[in-house]
């Protein structure tokens, strides 16, 4: 955050924030690596935006410390931190042209007129706004306004770029386009990006790491495939995508991970039974389960009956019910779904041992 052109490394230690009796953020510790693309993901009111505002310096934490490149910046006002920030709704200066908006942070820093002109010109070209320099924000489309906001936040080469749900106002196709653009800008600038969203697919597609928030708590941080495939708890598992949960009994460590009883059949998991013993929940993503005529010896599988199907084009979503009444959804090739439904009787649901993971029973 102090040396321009150099990505910042941020360390948050025990950050908490209360608004009156409302606990917005609780004991959050997190390291944000130099040049990383970190996404803060969670439902509204989970504390992710509060944390972003604390990073920007707009909100003062009730407790905890914040370091940037080893310097304590907890009490430093926003204008001295100068993190680049893109707001929800862009927050462009409505009375200034595109050019003047982008030049604003450079003017504040008292750069020479020639330097400002050069850097604004480069930035306008980089975000594809050539020809719109003299227009007012109100004369631009949503996507173009978004580009101005990005250019304005990046033009002074901040150590970190903070983005607060920047795409929430865009339609789906534009969203995809802007996501790709943002990924490119991240690679080109090498700056640390901290991105807030409530859209899990956006988070998984863009980030080098995802931090999942709920009720003011940071639940898990990890690479997208890590949090998707090996969530620590039920909330993370469910928030990141559809998931099947089957009750599991007698969980214990085994040679190659762990083992337990699922609907009276022995099943194996590669994950270790570290946090759970006895009763637990076995969680498997729909795309990791398949339909078979029967389960081979030693293979994970339980019997179920198909109840309904939803045709999705590339695949079919099939709803099934196990013998003991658990509901399961699988994503299977269209012809497999048709066959399973037409038989009307029992099929086998199977899954590889490395794709099932354990969650604590009951609670979140």
């Amino acid at each position, binding site marked *: 955050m102090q040396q321009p052109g150099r990505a910042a490394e941020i360390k948050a230690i025990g950050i908490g924030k209360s608004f009156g009796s409302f606990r917005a953020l609780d004991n959050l510790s997190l390291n944000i690596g130099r040049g990383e693309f970190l996404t803060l993901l969670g439902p509204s009111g989970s504390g992710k935006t509060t944390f972003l505002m604390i990073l*920007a*310096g*707009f909100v003062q934490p009730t407790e905890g410390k914040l370091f940037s490149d080893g310097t304590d910046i907890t009490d430093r*006002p*926003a*204008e*001295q931190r*100068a*993190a*680049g*920030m893109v*707001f*929800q*709704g862009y*927050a*462009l*200066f*409505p*009375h200034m042209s595109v050019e003047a908006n982008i030049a*604003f*942070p450079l003017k*504040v*820093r008292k750069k020479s007129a020639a330097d400002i002109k050069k850097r604004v010109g480069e930035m306008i070209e980089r975000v594809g706004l050539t020809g719109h320099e003299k227009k007012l924000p109100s004369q631009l489309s949503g996507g173009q306004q978004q580009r101005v906001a990005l250019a*304005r*936040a990046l033009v*002074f080469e901040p150590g970190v770029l*903070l983005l607060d749900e920047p795409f929430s106002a865009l339609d789906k196709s534009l969203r995809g386009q802007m996501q790709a653009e943002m990924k490119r800008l991240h690679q080109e600038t090498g700056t640390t990006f901290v991105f807030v969203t409530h859209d899990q697919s956006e988070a998984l597609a863009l980030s080098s790491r995802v931090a999942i928030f709920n009720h003011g708590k940071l639940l898990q941080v990890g690479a997208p495939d890590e949090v998707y495939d090996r969530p620590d708890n039920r909330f993370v598992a469910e928030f990141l995508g559809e998931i099947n949960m089957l009750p599991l009994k007698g969980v214990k460590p085994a040679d190659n991970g762990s083992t337990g009883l699922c609907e009276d059949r022995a099943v194996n998991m590669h994950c270790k039974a570290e946090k759970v013993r006895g009763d637990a929940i076995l969680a498997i993503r729909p795309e990791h389960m398949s339909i078979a005529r029967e389960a081979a010896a030693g293979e994970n599988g339980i019997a179920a009956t198909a109840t309904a199907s939803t045709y999705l084009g590339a695949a079919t979503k099939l709803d099934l019910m196990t013998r003991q009444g658990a509901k399961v959804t699988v994503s299977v090739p269209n012809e497999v779904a048709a066959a399973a439904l037409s038989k009307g009787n029992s099929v086998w649901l199977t899954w590889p041992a490395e794709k099932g993971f354990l969650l604590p029973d009951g609670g979140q």
Partner: protein
Amino acid sequence: MRGVLSDRMGAALLMAPLLLFLVPAYAWPFLGVVKWSFTLPTPGLGQYEALLTDDLVQSVFIRTLRIAAIVTVVSVAAAYAITVVWVRGSPAQRLIAEFCILVPFWISVLTRAFGWVALLSNRGLINTWLQSIGFISEPLTLVRNEFGVVVGMTHFLIPFAVFPLASAMRSLDDRVLLAARGLGSSRMRTFWTVFVPMTRSGIIGSALIVFVFSLGFFVTPAILGGGRSVMIAELIYLRIFQSPDWGLGAAISVVLVLFVGALMALLFRYVRPKQLI
């Protein structure tokens, strides 16, 4: 369709009492004034010719414009400061600002003008106090001149300048201000380069309201000007009631109304009436 129609009928019904009052009490008599301006003392354009040549009338017109301009600048600037506190201050600050804005409405313009005389006259509070601390030896002339008129009018008009400004400041998106600070701009710089330009429509509306009001002021300049800084409304009064020169008085009135009408037309080109409340 029915909804729209009944809405319009409803609006017409609500406006009817005002129109029923304004037409006979204002519009009709004003047409009479227009008629005098062309017929008294002799039919023709003589009175308008006199307007263009009469030195006294012209100097009063110029003084009126000058006082109105000064009052506008001072009132809008002062109102801007109060409004910032009223709209963006802490709850306690808001309460104090609200009090300062609303209380003046409860006191009549006449009372306030005499109040200022008591404060500003040669043996008034301010001169007595300044003399007693030895700051001045002779009393300052603070009243019966343009200074007194400007003070009294500004004091009266500040609350009116507040409302268009408040409306503009309330509609401002806080995130834009945060964005400016996040980009490295100090509070001061953010205020001047972002906040003030974004409330431009409020400033224009506020200034035009104060200016138009100032042009027609009668009581305050008559009392605080002490006959020495006569403004246009007082001149009309003098022409009609003291030197029975009804034709000239009527012609000045017509010119004033046309001028104010033109300013109002200008006002509504920049701001919609809704923004002024």
